[in-house]
């Protein structure tokens, strides 16, 4: 349960990072708050748009999906089902691979680093690691064979 809670919190942070970049890409607000980084270079590059949609939008959708799945997995009825952990690992893996591709573009094609993108990369990597660890954690056993033996009436 703790792992799913951690994933939900991380996804919430990632969601707002992606939301900020997406709203900026839509022309809302002033320049990106980026310090001395190259956020505007990255955002103005041809790679900032994929299939006609700002890349940040895919981040919003991805983090929202992870958040929703994590919250659904926190329902009491779902706590004992390991399939939710597998689904979270799958979503996080897609996110990590997409982020790795974007980071490659920043470093070797655009030659500029967007601090918000780095922040998002850290968040999705953390989600992925927590999701992987959750797979290895011992599941709560509910089958009768694993239940503790009933107290001995003769005792």
């Amino acid at each position: 349960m703790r792992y799913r809670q951690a994933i939900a919190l991380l996804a919430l942070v990632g969601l707002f990072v992606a939301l900020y970049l997406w709203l900026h890409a839509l022309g809302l607000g002033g320049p990106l708050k980026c310090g001395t980084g190259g956020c505007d270079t990255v955002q103005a590059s041809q790679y900032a748009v994929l299939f006609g949609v700002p890349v940040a939008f895919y981040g919003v959708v991805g983090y929202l999906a992870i958040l929703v799945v994590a919250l659904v997995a926190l329902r009491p009825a779902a706590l004992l089902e390991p399939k939710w952990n597998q689904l979270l690992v799958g979503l996080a893996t897609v996110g990590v691979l997409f982020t790795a591709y974007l980071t490659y573009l920043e470093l070797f094609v655009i030659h500029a680093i967007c601090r918000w993108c780095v922040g998002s990369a850290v968040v999705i990597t953390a989600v992925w690691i927590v999701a992987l660890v959750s797979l290895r954690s011992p599941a709560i056993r509910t089958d009768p064979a694993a239940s503790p033996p009933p107290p001995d009436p003769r005792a």
Partner: protein
Amino acid sequence: MNRFYVVLAGVAVVLAIGTFTMLKSDGGGASAAATGAPPTVVDDGFRGYSLGQGDAPIEITEYLDFECPVCASFDVIQMPTIKEQLINTGKVRWRYRDYPLPNHRYSRFSAHAAQCAGAQGRFFEMLDQLFHNHQWAQTGKDPSRLFRDLAKTAGLDLNAYDQCMEEGRYAQRIEFSRQEGDQLLVNGTPTFFANGKQLNFRRLPTSDDFKAVVDSIIAQSPPKPRTAPARN
């Protein structure tokens, strides 16, 4: 469990306020002095940065607008070949003059960024940055932060660049160039002149078109006398 949802909601509220605050603050932006037309115009004697040898027989002057997508396309696609075949071979000296179009919001600002780069001896590096990263011209958003990034990439001293942009130091020079273009009946960008005579192409010219023009001029007329330094 309930405590977790309270924490989650609290974090969501804090993040939402932070996002809203960051979107609402403008964080500076393009200085008015470098963005608008100056109230007065003076001739400082500057006639544009140029590429090529001073004794090149042909001088081609290009009136350009940095926000113009056709100018960017021409610079990115055609200029490398023109440099290789015509400028580096000593046949052509290529001069850049500003002609900011009134319908482009950041034309003067981008021209000013290039002039401020020129003050540091990096006009051509900044020109390349502005044209090779031309997506800024299609977003309609304030490009001042991006231009600082580009200036940094072009190797500029950012403190001097910031001061130059804030003062609008070359706004009059840019306006002088535009008025000069008006007098020469420039009515769009890019517009080209070869040894002072306007070139009329039926479409965006290619490097082959310029090669044909240059070959034609060289074949028909004696070389131009030596007058100017190689690059200013």
